[in-house]
């Protein structure tokens, strides 16, 4: 069962092609990561998905069909351009925006009290939004996104301006929402958070989907190009190894095209070394990201 299905969408602004061809599906109850370099089309993809922009090509199905007024109440969206009424007291601002999501004001006020407490903003609820720090405004924005208990949460760069404590708070909240059955689509540059939170990812580059799937599978797919080796003695020269890099207490052997980890292991054993560690190096998401984008540029 999918919360969102995007199929071959395209969107341009004048002569600029923001999204050329992007397809993905987000399963219900997962945290989905939308990645890509700056200007790759992530935000436009989200906006098309949420019916802010109409696509020139392709189709979008959200919560089982096209977007509707009723569905808007089941979606929480935190856009890249953060927005709250700067001249309004925090509580009034959040309650008003929640009422537009179909929550009665009294109920919204009740939900809000708990979130303000949790995010350490209770003492600031009467202050105007503009009087809050950037981090506090970011937290308020996150509360605004989830206050109406949405089924689908779409967040563009959720960790911007947050300190490590609040980052952890938001991560815990996202996991909690997922455990309660909500689907989360998160667009971010912060690969560590993606690795920690996301089940599946989509990497967009130049308006096209270039990498899509389960995080574990993707990492496996991009592993095999390096091995981690620790020996009792000196590392001998091994055929098919292009580069040797220090890696914690071991060495990371970068393999040449056509060389497999088995070839390296065989070569080492043939030289009668005492092997303490031999491990296929799983690339970080950062490394995969850079590699895919560089390959695309090439």
């Amino acid at each position, binding site marked *: 069962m999918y919360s969102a299905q995007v199929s071959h969408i395209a969107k341009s602004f004048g002569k600029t092609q923001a999204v050329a061809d992007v397809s993905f599906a987000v399963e219900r109850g997962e945290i989905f990561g939308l990645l890509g370099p700056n200007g790759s089309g992530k935000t436009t993809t989200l906006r098309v998905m949420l019916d802010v922009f109409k696509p*020139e090509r392709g189709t979008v199905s959200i919560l089982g069909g096209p977007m509707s007024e009723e569905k808007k109440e089941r979606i929480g969206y935190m856009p890249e351009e953060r927005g709250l009424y700067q001249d309004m007291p925090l509580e009034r601002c959040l309650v008003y925006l929640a009422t*537009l999501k179909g929550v009665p004001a009294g109920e919204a006020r009740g939900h809000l009290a708990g979130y303000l407490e949790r995010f350490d903003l209770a003492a600031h609820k009467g202050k105007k939004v503009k009087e809050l720090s950037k981090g506090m405004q970011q937290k308020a924005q996150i509360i605004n996104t989830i206050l109406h208990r949405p089924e689908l949460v779409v967040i563009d760069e959720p960790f911007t301006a947050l300190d490590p404590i609040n980052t952890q708070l938001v991560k815990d909240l996202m996991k909690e929402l997922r455990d309660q059955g909500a689907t989360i689509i998160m667009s971010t540059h912060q690969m560590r958070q993606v690795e920690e939170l996301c089940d599946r990812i989509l990497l967009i580059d130049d308006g096209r989907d270039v990498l899509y799937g389960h995080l574990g599978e993707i990492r496996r797919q991009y592993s095999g190009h390096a091995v981690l080796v620790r020996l009792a003695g000196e590392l001998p020269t091994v055929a098919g190894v292009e580069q040797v890099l220090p890696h914690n207490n071991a060495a990371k052997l970068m393999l040449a095209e056509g060389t497999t980890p088995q070839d390296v292991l065989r070569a080492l054993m043939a030289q009668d070394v005492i092997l303490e560690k031999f491990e296929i190096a799983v690339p970080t998401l950062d490394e995969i990201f850079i590699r895919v984008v560089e390959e695309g540029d090439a």
Partner: protein
Amino acid sequence: MWKLWYVARHEYARNVFKKSFILALLSVPLLIGVNIGLIAFMVSLDNNNAPVGYVDHAGLLSDPIPAPVAPSEGAIQFIPFQTEDEARDALEAKSLQAYYIVSPDYFETSRIDLLYLKEPGENATQQFYDFIQINVLADQPPEIALRAAEGSNVTVRAPDGSREFSGAPTLGAILPVLLSVAFIFLLLMSSGYLMQAVVDEKENRTMEVLITSLSASRLISGKVLGIVAIGLTQLVAWILVGALAVFIGGEVFGIEWFQNPGLDWGPILTVVAIAIPSYVLACGLMVAVGSTVGQAQEGQQIGALFFMLFMIPLYAIMVIGETPNATPSVVLTLLPFTSLMTVGFRSLFSVVPLWQVAASVAIQTACAAGALWLAGRAFRLGMLRYGQRLRFSEIFARARATTTGRSLS
């Protein structure tokens, strides 16, 4: 549907409970009140109800007949003196504000001398003039003397016979003008609020959150509804203040002008009929402007241009007054922006033909529909242009793209 009400309520509350709104609400009646008060004060400075003396050497006032005086004015006492010395003593003792000496050869020369220490009130000189006039005519039958003292009863009539009023224009006759001016103020104020409401959403970056909560049409409808409610609040407040002023003026101060307003509903309804589409036209254009500009200041500058368009008839008031049914007046009646005030002015001098009213309402309505279309497009295209302008050519370029079959964002 209720989201629309929430937006309307939000717009209403965030504007109406501001000090600036309350100031704006009170400023117009306050300004009018202060002006009227100042005029009344200046007039009262020119008036003096102290007794006036006279020495009659001509025998004109030996058996004086009092002249009729308006109840609101207050009759001044005229005291006869046998000699000029007695009159001078009374003046110096400050029991008189002035005294007149009717010269012995008055019937030949009309000479009357006025003596005073401080210039007497205008009401005193006017009443003494009437007093003399009625007494000069004393040997005439009383009704002729009174008619002569009251002056002529002039009826002002339009050359085509479409409009007439007696004496000075009644409150009812100038009401369409006042109403059209009030509507223009209201319309400019409301459309300004509306433009500000759109610009504020852009400046606060709340647009994206809003349009993923409700449709753009409901958002704009809610805003328009809220702003219309603000306008109605202003209008009702002004009408109440106006009605109160008429009541106080008529019942408390006995001002005749307020006692018999002589309401004529035809011109009033004509102004209202044109005001409604004009209001929608202005609101639509202001939403379009608010959507295209990057900052509030820019929008205010464009708003000032609209204000000038609405004010064009003010510069043509002489032409409209002299030839209310000539081509320039008809053209200004039919044109958007200028029609409201032109119809108000024309109603003062003539009856605007029904076909012109109907044509004007039709043109205004068509323009209002166009403005709403433009507003919708501009809003859709410009809502996420934070800090950037949307060129009008882009709106039309995209509209052309639609008509030629290309897809539209």
